[in-house]
């Protein structure tokens, strides 16, 4: 089904079975039924070694590299050439240079992998596959960790490989990339092939095939009516686990009734920034203020603003619990690690940060009936697909787990919503729903701070976009700023004419 010298895109939502299919192809999983034909011959792979022998290579979503080894050492790993029992480093280097020249993939064989940017690490993975003479290369969501520019480079590399007669299976759920590079497209949904398409198919029709119904790819939203600031961050400096400065003197302002999007490649201080705001990480320097933030003109400043009774409040050094109670909603970036207790029921997770609220408990006695009633309401309101409100949340799909978090955070009046990667690993349908709820929250006068490494998401939702790079906010741009400009800023390029500040 994949021709030589072809780029075949495998398109599907998270959990559609793309990765499982490819893991079978690469010998990591065994098929229960059916067979794999390579050059017309049925093959059975007992492990990745068999797959590599048959000419199949794979670049995983999470790189399989040893960070402290050099590029050449990583590439030779598992296929070390030895001379008299010693590693033959020279021939390894030679081979790396040969391959990288042949396919136009510049890598320095002596660099240590952990010092390399993510895009280059990915290139190392590709070279690693090519050194083993594979004919078919599987790329599993290769663009998830790349800046727009790095993505363009990767697409160029893929074209080079194609020209050299290699076949590529390109797994993704990003429609734009598929259209840009693929020769043929296979759409999978719930473990089945639901159709094949050519790249000239429209994005809407591809999305519809992927989800099984028509979806809106654009977020419907009216113009924002920003009010007074709800959150001001000034000169904020925060350290990461290793004591390195992760957030470096950041100034931000989020106003009532607007979405401030923070764009940036992952690992540029976004996580530390929001953890500092939420009181989960100590602040080294600077201030974080939460204000009453009256809603903008033309908005009903009624009951929803009840939370805004206390006026301004410094969040530095405050406990997470108090910050949440002050009217801040928080959708953490890693839902399974920080957002949910997987063993707990949906109902319990829906009250995880309000369990001792008078409405759910009297004294130290929980009120299961109130909790369950609230859970049933939220499940209906947020369209959480679960067998029961008593089912452990770990049994739900990623999208529905995320809806549980969103429902929990939006179930009380908010001044500020901090949403980190709110749709990561979430299917298109749930993404659509979550985006709509975020916009609705904004329209009710809540200030929204959105952090996402998906530029599309930031552009679709944000009213203003702040770009973070190496712990600094390089610029705050209006939402209609050209994507190229945002992309360059994400890569740290600031040679642009002085970026406009619109505050």
């Amino acid at each position: 089904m994949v021709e030589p010298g072809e780029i075949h895109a495998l398109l599907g939502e998270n959990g559609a079975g793309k990765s499982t299919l490819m893991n079978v192809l690469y010998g990591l999983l065994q098929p229960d039924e059916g067979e794999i034909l390579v050059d017309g011959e049925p093959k059975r792979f007992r492990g990745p070694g068999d797959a590599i022998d048959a000419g199949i290579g794979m670049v995983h979503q999470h790189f399989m590299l040893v960070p402290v080894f050099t590029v050449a050492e990583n590439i030779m790993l598992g296929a070390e050439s030895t001379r008299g029992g010693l590693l033959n480093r020279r021939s390894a280097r030679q081979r790396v240079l040969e391959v990288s020249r042949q396919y136009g993939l510049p890598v320095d064989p002596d660099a240590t992998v952990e010092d390399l940017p993510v895009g280059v690490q990915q290139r190392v993975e590709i070279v690693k596959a090519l050194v083993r003479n594979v004919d078919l290369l599987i790329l599993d969501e290769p663009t998830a960790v790349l800046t727009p520019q790095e993505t363009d480079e990767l697409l160029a590399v893929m074209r080079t490989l194609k020209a050299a007669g290699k076949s590529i299976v390109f797994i993704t759920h990003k429609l734009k990339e598929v259209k840009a590079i693929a020769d043929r497209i296979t759409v999978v949904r719930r473990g089945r092939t639901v159709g094949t398409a050519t790249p000239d198919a429209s994005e809407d029709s591809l999305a519809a095939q992927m989800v099984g119904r028509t979806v809106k790819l654009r977020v419907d939203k009216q113009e924002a009516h920003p009010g007074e600031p709800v959150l001001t961050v000034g000169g904020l400096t925060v350290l990461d686990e290793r004591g390195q400065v992760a957030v470096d003197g950041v100034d931000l302002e989020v106003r009532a009734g607007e979405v401030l999007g923070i764009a940036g490649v992952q690992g540029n201080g976004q996580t530390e920034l929001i953890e500092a705001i939420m009181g989960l990480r100590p602040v080294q320097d600077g201030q974080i203020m939460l204000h009453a933030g009256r809603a903008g003109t033309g908005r009903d400043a009624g009951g929803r603003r009840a939370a805004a009774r206390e006026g301004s409040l410094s969040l530095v050094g405050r406990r997470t619990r108090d910050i949440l109670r002050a009217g801040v909603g928080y959708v953490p970036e890693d839902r399974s690690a920080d957002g949910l207790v997987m063993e707990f029921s949906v109902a319990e997770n829906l009250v995880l940060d309000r369990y001792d609220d008078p409405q759910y408990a009297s004294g130290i006695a929980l009120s299961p009936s109130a909790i369950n009633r609230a859970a049933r309401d939220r499940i209906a309101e947020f369209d959480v697909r679960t067998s029961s409100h008593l089912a452990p949340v770990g049994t739900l799909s990623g999208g529905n787990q995320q809806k549980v978090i969103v429902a929990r955070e939006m179930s009380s009046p908010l001044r500020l919503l901090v949403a980190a990667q709110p749709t990561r690993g979430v299917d298109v349908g749930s993404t659509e729903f979550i985006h709509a709820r975020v916009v609705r929250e904004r329209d009710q006068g809540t200030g929204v701070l959105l952090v996402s490494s998906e530029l599309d998401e930031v552009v679709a939702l944000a009213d203003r976009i702040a770009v973070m790079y190496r712990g600094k906010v390089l610029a705050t741009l209006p939402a209609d700023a050209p994507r190229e400009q945002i992309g360059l800023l994400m890569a740290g390029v600031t040679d642009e004419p002085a970026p406009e500040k619109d505050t």
Partner: protein
Amino acid sequence: MTESGGGTSPDKDLAGETEPPGADASGVPAQRTPADKADKADKPAEPAESAEPTESTEPAETAEPAESAGPAGATGGAEPAGAAAEGVQGFGRTVLDSILSANTVTVTVLAVFIALVVGAILIVISDSNLTSEYGYFFSEPGTVLGDSWSVVGGAYANLFKGSVFDPATLSGAISGTNSWSQAFAPLSETLTYTAPLVFTGLAVALAFRGGLFNIGAQGQAILGAIGGALVGFELHLPYALHLIVALVGAALGGALWAFIAGALKARAGAHEVIVTIMLNNVATLFLTWLIVQKGVHDPTRSDAISKNVDKTARLPTIPGVDHSVVRVHLGIVLGVLVALGVAWLLQRSTIGFRLRAVGANPSAARTAGMSVGGAYILVMVLSGALAGLGGGMQVLGTTASSLTGQVTANIGFDGITVALLGRGKPWGVVASALLFGALHAGGNRMQSYSHVAIDLVVVLQAVIVIFIAAPALVKAIFRLRAARSGGTPTTLAKGW
């Protein structure tokens, strides 16, 4: 384990029950380490499985060597103590996972069954007549097997008669050759041994649910015994009130001891396993020192034993029966009530909600605004109070009436086993405490009637725990492992 004055204790039952110190020392690690090791074995196994999901038959093989690698396991335990809080929490969670999710009722029942089989083999091996018979096994296999069967059967029958019911005493009671009390004596013995185990088992189980591995129930029980005894003989209060104050004293003693470990964990990140093990030793030596101090030591005795607890502070027994025969006391009722309370606390209270959340996912609990450190301190204090009550049962009940070096016997360490077997659930704990109480009560009779050392009971307990902690082993033995076709790496890892 230091022993002082154990042999000359005035308490008949304690003297009968006290194991030789050597057996004691060997029994303790046997019970502690399997659980410990198996949980550590989990950790390396998991990444290996997820990295290579194809090798799904591998786990059974990889885990076994890991388990037998005792020293490696031990160093693995020392590392997280120094490591960051995350590593420590990870360990606690792994422990919790393997206890709460990895086991099934089937595994529990089969583990008990395997233990009985292993016990039978040991009985045969340790019987010198039988071992000499096995010299001519091939000439008369029938006789040899028959004799083995009768010896094993006799021993287990005595185990049953000593713990549940002996038909001879029933007919004796009917015909009038012995009292009715005699017929109920075995059950009474079982319940007497069960009572403290319910408390220490609940203590360890509660800590498990809060994500902590409280190895220190033994030390906390010792401090509980001290607290209860001090109130019992230093204060002189009226009936009922004295008992209540003494129980409070026992709970406070244990809670204080556990607070040290909880506070060190919450504030300094010290691993609770290491701290509580050390505190166990401190508690044992403190007790040894305390009982010979003026004001505590019984001046009428020359051996190391404290004064007697006042009658007013003793747990009441069943009125109108011979207390030397039927010595079950109020402790078992309190134990069941406390189990009910712990079940309510865990499932229906805000405190339990917080403890369970912190135990299951500390970082999500923190993100939801809960104080993880505060929860650790709270769970340790509650756990210590329960263990302290367990220790209080020993001095305020009918087992002993004064402090000796061995007064708490092994109830703290047995509590760990009980909590494991009860899978961290309050009612599971009550059931497994009952099983262990029965084994202990029956073991006494087995020793005196069948001449099988009571140490066999310790072996049975240890074997049960090994198999509970390594369910894959049980599944492998009984070929329970599910067909390996569609299993994902995560479920395989979870299956551990």
